[in-house]
């Protein structure tokens, strides 16, 4: 079953076509990587998928339902969550409050009691290995920790599909391995993952399929091994 499908997506900022007639899809249970040089339109595509931007043309389907033009919170309630390239956290709150807000507002059909909420949030923090930091103010956290907190917050909305925008950049090798392990764990929990990443080692190790973007359109697609051999991809990344 197709979890996410984009048909002929285009988006222009004034005269600049950031995304140009892109088609892509993500199967249920897959880990799909989205790579491409800077300015290829990857983050713009994520913004369109999550509802932050409205595409100039094209249709986006999530679990078979047309979600083009929906508000971010409606898309979130249908089971999609995301993180941001530049972290967007509530910096004057504690980590715990950040996640609590996501738990309370991301699951509108559930009535969650105070105790139950606390238990669930603690579980999520434990999964990410940051249980002891949960009452720290976000201001005092390192960037790596803030990125992990964004994932915790996204998970609190109970997503079926998780969009990760460069969660591994700026991590130490040890943290990188932890993150890769974590992503495979998330898949075991039944969460489909669509991720933008620049760290090639990570993306090759984790993804089932990779989509390569250049100047707003898809130029290659396939398993990591296939993409590495692709002549156009090599030309873009290494020069001819």
């Amino acid at each position, binding site marked *: 079953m197709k979890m996410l499908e984009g048909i002929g997506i285009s988006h222009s900022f004034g005269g600049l076509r950031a995304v140009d007639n892109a088609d892509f899809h993500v199967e249920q249970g897959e880990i799909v990587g989205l790579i491409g040089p800077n300015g290829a339109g990857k983050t713009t595509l994520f913004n369109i998928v999550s509802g932050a931007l409205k595409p100039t043309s094209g249709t986006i389907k999530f679990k078979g339902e047309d979600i083009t033009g929906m*508000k971010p919170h409606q898309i979130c309630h249908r089971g999609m969550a995301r993180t941001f390239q530049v972290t967007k956290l509530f910096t004057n709150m504690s980590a715990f409050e950040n996640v609590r807000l996501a738990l309370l507002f991301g699951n509108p059909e559930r009535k969650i009691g105070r105790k139950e909420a606390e238990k669930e949030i603690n579980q999520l923090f434990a999964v990410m290995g940051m249980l002891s930091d949960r009452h720290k103010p976000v201001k005092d956290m390192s960037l790596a920790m803030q990125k992990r907190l964004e994932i915790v917050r996204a998970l609190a909305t109970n997503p079926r599909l998780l969009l990760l925008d460069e969660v591994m950049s700026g991590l130490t090798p040890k943290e990188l391995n932890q993150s890769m392990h974590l992503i495979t764990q998330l898949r075991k929990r039944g969460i489909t993952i669509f991720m933008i990443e620049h760290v090639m080692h990570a993306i090759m190790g984790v993804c089932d399929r990779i989509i390569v973007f250049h100047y707003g359109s898809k130029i290659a697609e396939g398993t990591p091994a296939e993409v590495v051999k692709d002549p156009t991809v090599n030309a873009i990344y290494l020069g001819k």
Partner: protein
Amino acid sequence: MLISTIFNKRKFTLSMILLSIALLAVVPRFLPPYVIISLITVLMYIILTLSWTMFSGSTNYISLATAALFGVGVYTSAVLSGSFPLIVIVVISGVLSFILALLVGSLTLRLKGVYFILFTFGVTALIRNVIQWWETHITLTVGRHVSSPGNDTVYTYMVIIYALTLIFIFLLQNSSYGMALQGIGENEDAAEHIGIDVTRLKVVTFALSAIFMGAAGAVMATRWRYIDPTIAFNPLLSFLPVLMAIFGGTSMLGGPILGAVIFTLLQEYLITEYPYLYMLLMGLTLVIVILYLPGGLLVLVMRLYIRLMIQWAKTRFQWQMLKTRWREEWRPKVSMELAQRRLRLQWRLGRKRR
């Protein structure tokens, strides 16, 4: 951090709220009428500042529509004066302000930053001019007289509105919606993406805060007895609540109240003592507060309070030390001395009797 860990306790805030309401309800029986009239003005500013903070304090959307929402209440009260009992007029005014805010909100809350500020201010000017035009061309009146129920009744109404505003804002800030509003203020994109319906939450909160402004306006009209569009929609009433909230500090509930009280009293004092330098001194005070107390006056008060608490702890400790010394060193000496004297006296008295 220290401040928030000590003072963000719900019980403390709630007891302070109830205490202030109780004080306002009881104390005026013992005060001269002049003080009651000043208290009405102070209460008006407190209500406006609090209801402004309700929306703008946490979302960082600076609204300058306060005068419009307040003025609608004032005008409704003037138009309906005499045809209904005051309580009905106050309720109708609140509802009308609510509706106006709902309209303005759903038009403007898509705007961000300076555009929102300008639009809300524009709305105020628009409403004032429309009503002015209506009065001069259609109804052919310039001002309106409002029958007054007497200052004591006005005061009672203001205290009730004050209590309702305060309790509402307390409940809001302690609910998940209050937290969501704060989230909107800190990062609206993130708030949207974790499932908060930001537009609806903003519009509804903005509209709810208008109820209290409208109700206060309706009561103030009966206190002023004569109103016209320039009094009802005085643009100063858009700016003052913002200044008062910043003056007092918006991080805690006490801030806007403190700001409104001190600002109003300062204003009254400066107007009577230095009528010519009044504006200059007012501006200077504001500049000093904003430069040197970025968190508002409340932060200063809290610092003083903490220093006081530390001093208090020290004093208690010294007192304990004194008590131990008394018990261990001085009391044995004193009691020994006393026993000696008693025995000596007994001995002397016994000798005489013999």
